[in-house]
C-alpha cells in the first residue's frame, strides 16, 4: 500500500492537523506518522476516531504521501495547499511560519 497519513481539522479553531507518533496532533505535515501497512493504518484511523470522540479533531481522513529528501510530502495539489496555505498569500497559513513545510512543498507553483 502507498505510504499513508491521517489528517483532520482541530475542532476549536479549524487548524489543519496531522496525526503524529504517540497520538499527538501536529500542525506540520512533516511530523505525521506514516502507515506503511494495513494494520498500521487501521491503528492510526482508530486513534483518530478516539480523538474525534475526545473533541480534539473533526473529519479525519487518510491521505497518501511520499517520502522525499527524508521528509513526508503530500501527493495531491489540494493537500499541498492545505499543508502550506493559499498559494496567493505567502503570509497566511502554515507557510507563514513554517519554513520546513515550505521546503516540503517547494514544487507548488506560485
Amino acid at each position, binding site marked *: 500500500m502507498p505510504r499513508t497519513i491521517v489528517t483532520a*481539522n482541530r*475542532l*476549536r*479553531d*479549524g*487548524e*489543519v492537523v496531522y496525526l503524529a507518533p504517540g497520538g499527538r496532533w501536529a500542525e506540520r505535515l512533516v511530523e505525521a506518522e506514516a502507515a506503511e501497512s494495513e494494520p498500521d493504518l487501521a491503528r492510526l484511523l482508530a486513534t483518530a476516531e478516539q480523538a*474525534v*470522540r475526545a*473533541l480534539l479533531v*473533526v*473529519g479525519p481522513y487518510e491521505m497518501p504521501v511520499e517520502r522525499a529528501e527524508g521528509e513526508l510530502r503530500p*501527493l*495531491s*495539489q*489540494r493537500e499541498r*495547499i*492545505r499543508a502550506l*496555505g*493559499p*498559494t*496567493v*498569500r505567502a503570509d*497566511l*497559513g502554515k507557510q507563514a511560519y513554517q519554513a520546513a513545510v515550505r521546503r516540503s512543498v517547494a514544487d507548488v*507553483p*506560485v
Partner: protein
Amino acid sequence: MYRYDELDRTLVGERVEQFRDQVARRLTGELSEDEFRPLRLMNGLYLQLHAYMLRVAIPYGTLSARQMRMLAHVARRYDKGYGHFTTRQNIQFNWPRLEDVPDILAELASVDMHAIQTSGNSIRNVTADPYAGVAADEIEDPRITAEIIRQWSTLHPEFSFLPRKFKIAVTGAPHDRAAVRVHDIGLRMRRNGEGEVGFEVIVGGGQGRTPIIGPTICEFLPKRHLLSYIEAILRVYNQLGRRDNLFKARIKILVQSVGAALFAEMVEEEWQHLRDGACELPVEEVARIEAHFASPPYEALDPHPPAFAARRLGDREFGRWCRTNLAAHKRPGYAIVNISLKPVGGVPGDATAEQMEAIADLAERFGFGEIRVTHAQNLVLPDVRLGDVYAVWQGLGDAGLATANIGLVTDIIACPGLDYCNLANARSIPVAQRISQRFAEIERQYEIGELKIKISGCINACGHHHVGHIGILGVDKKGEEFYQITLGGSGDENAALGDIVGPAFSYDAVVDAVETIIATYLAVRREGEPFLATYRRVGLAPFKERLYGAH
C-alpha cells in the same frame, strides 16, 4: 437604507444566543459533528480547506459605513486582517476560530448584521442591482422588493428545508446588473400597457453543473401579488423538487423536466389558493419599507461642474479612472463611483481591514454613508457629488483602491478556488492574477475594450464562468490543474451560456490561451465592436483555429 425594527433585532439576537449555546454544546461533546453541522451551516459557518469560514449576509449588497467598519473590526480582531467579497454580494472571513464565532455574530448583530441563510437548503440572501435607487435607467428601486422578500423568507418555516438552496435576484432596471436569468427566481421590473409597474418572473435559471438560462413563466406580475406568487413557486418546488439526488435537486431541473409552460400552469394553479390571501402586500407595510429607501437629501447641483471637468482633463490618471469607474446617476451633478477590488496581481474581491475603513470614511464624508457590493466583487459608492469625485479618487488612491479597470479585461471575477475552498478542483485566483499582470498596461486594456473574464475552480460555478465573455473552469486531470475555456457567455439582459472552445489548457498554458483569444478578437473585430458582439458574429471557428490549428 433599511434599519432593523425591534422584531428584526430580537430575532437576530435570539439566533446569536442559540448559536452560542450550540457551539458550547459542541465544544463539550453534547453535540456530535453530524448533529452540529446543519446548525453551523444555518449560521453561515463552513469548514473549509484551511480553517472554518464564516459567510456574512449583506442583504441585496447594501452596507452602511458603520457596518463596513464592523466588518473591518471582525477582520482585524477575529480573522487575519481581511475579508473576501463574493459573487453573491456577501463577505467571507477565511480564518475564524469556532470558539470565537458566537462573539463575532454578537458583534455583527450590534450593527444589524448576521449570517442567517447564507448556507443550507434555504432561501439565500436576496441579491439586487448594486446601482439600486441611483441608476439613471431604473424603473423602480429593487431594494424595496428585495427587503420585502428578505423579511418574508427569513426563517420561513415552510421553506427552511427545501430540496436545495434557493437564490432570488431582483433588477429594477432594463440593463440587468443582477444576472436575473441565472437565478432560481429572477425578478425584472417592467411596465405593462397601462404604465403600471410589476415584475417579469423568471424561474429555473442557474449555473453550476447544469447551466440554464431561466425561462419567463409570468410576463407581468402586479406588485401586490409578489409574495403570494413566489410562495406558489416555492410550494411547487418544495413538493416536487428532487430530494433523492443532490445534483438534480435545484428548481431548474424540475422546470426543465416538466417544461416551463407546464411549470407555469402548476404555479398558477397553486397560486389560485394563495392569491389575495395572507401574503398579499398591505399598502401600509410596503409604504413603511419604501420609506427606508427614500432618496438621501440630494442638492440641486450643476450637472457639469467646471472644476470636475478641469480635473478630468488636467490629471491623466484621474481622467482614466473616471472613464471606467464612474456610472450615470439619476440626479444631475452626482455620480455612481465604482471601487475596483481588482488591483493588477491582486486577489479579486479581497479588501483589508484598513481598506474597509477607508471606504467607510469616504462613504461618510462624500456619500451619505452608503456602500454597495457588486456581484462582480467590486464595491460602489452610490451617491457622490461630481464636485467631490476627485477627493474620493485621491482617498481611494491612498488606500490602494484607485484601480481604473471596471468592465475591462483585468476586472476579473474569480471564486476562492483551491487556494481556500474544499470543493475546488483547481486554483482560480492565481489564474486571475496572471491574466491581470499580462494585460496590466492600461492602453492595451482600452484597446481591448469591455471584456468580462470569469473564473471558477470547480463545476459549482461560484466564479460565474458560464456567463463570462471568456469563461474559465478549473478541472482536475489526474491530479493536475487544467482549465476549460468557454466563449460568448453573458449574465446581463442578453444572457447566454458560453460555448466550450476545445480541450482544456494546463495551468502554465491557460494565460497564453486567453491572450491568443484576445489577439484573435482584435484581428477579426469590426470598428468599435465589443468582444461579445464579435463572438456572436463570427462564432467559435476563428478562435478554435488560432488556439488549436497548429496541432
